[in-house]
C-alpha cells in the first residue's frame, strides 16, 4: 500500500510497468511523426494561438 495515498494499487511495480507498456502501445497505434508532420504542414493559426496563450499565461502570473 502507498502510505501517502492509502491506495493499495499505488506503487505496485507490476502495475506501473503495465501502464508504461500500455502507454507505448497507445502511442504505437498512432501514425508516426513523419506522417503527422506531412499531414499538418501549416499550423500558422495554432502557432499564433499558442504564442498568445503563453504570453497571457505569463502576464497572468506576473512574469
Amino acid at each position: 500500500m502507498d502510505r501517502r495515498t492509502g491506495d493499495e494499487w499505488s506503487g505496485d511495480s507490476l502495475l506501473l510497468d503495465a501502464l508504461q507498456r500500455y502507454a507505448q502501445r497507445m502511442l504505437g497505434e498512432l501514425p508516426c511523426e513523419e506522417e503527422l508532420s506531412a499531414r499538418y504542414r501549416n499550423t500558422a493559426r495554432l502557432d499564433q494561438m499558442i504564442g498568445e496563450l503563453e504570453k497571457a499565461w505569463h502576464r497572468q502570473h506576473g512574469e
Partner: protein
Amino acid sequence: MEFDEKSVKLERLYALHKNVMLYTAERILRDYQLAEDAVQKSFMKVLDNLHKIEDPDCNKTRAFLVIITRNVAITMYNQQKKQAVPIEEIEQVDCAQGLTPFEEVASKESVEAIAQYIGQLDKKYSDVLMLKFYYQYSDCEIADLVQTSPENVRVRLHRGKRKLAALLKGDERFNGSQNRR
C-alpha cells in the same frame, strides 16, 4: 521555474507533440479548426502542470499529452452535441476490491498481458488509471485535467480498478487460487 525555462519547455513540448495532439483531437472532432482549439485548451492545462513534466522529449510526456487532448476533445464534442456527460452514480465500495490483484502474479511476462487488459478498458477508465498511478496526479488534479468533478474521478478510478481486476481474475495467470501453491 524561471520565465525563460518555462518558455523553452513549452515551446519544446509544442514543437515535439503538436501534431500528435492535433491528430488526436481531429479524430474525435472531425474538424481541423476545432482540433486546433482543442490543442490550445490542452496547452492551457499543460501550462498549469509544466513543473511536473520532467522531460518534454519522451514517450511518457507524449502519452500524457495525448490523454489530455483526448479528454479536452471529447468534452468539446459533447458540448457541441449538447450532450450532458452524466455524473456517474456512486457505487458501494467493497473494501476487498482495493486489494491489488498484481501481487498474485509470478512473472514479469505478465506486464504485456496486463497492458492489453488496460487497453480493453473504456478510455475514461484507462485515462484516469494512467493519470493516477503512472503520472501520480491527485484526484482533484485529474478532475481538472479531464474536465470532470473529483467525485467523478473517484468513481471512474473505482470502476476502472474493478473492471481491470475482473479481467485479471478471468485470466488463469492472474488467478491466485489457481496459481498459489
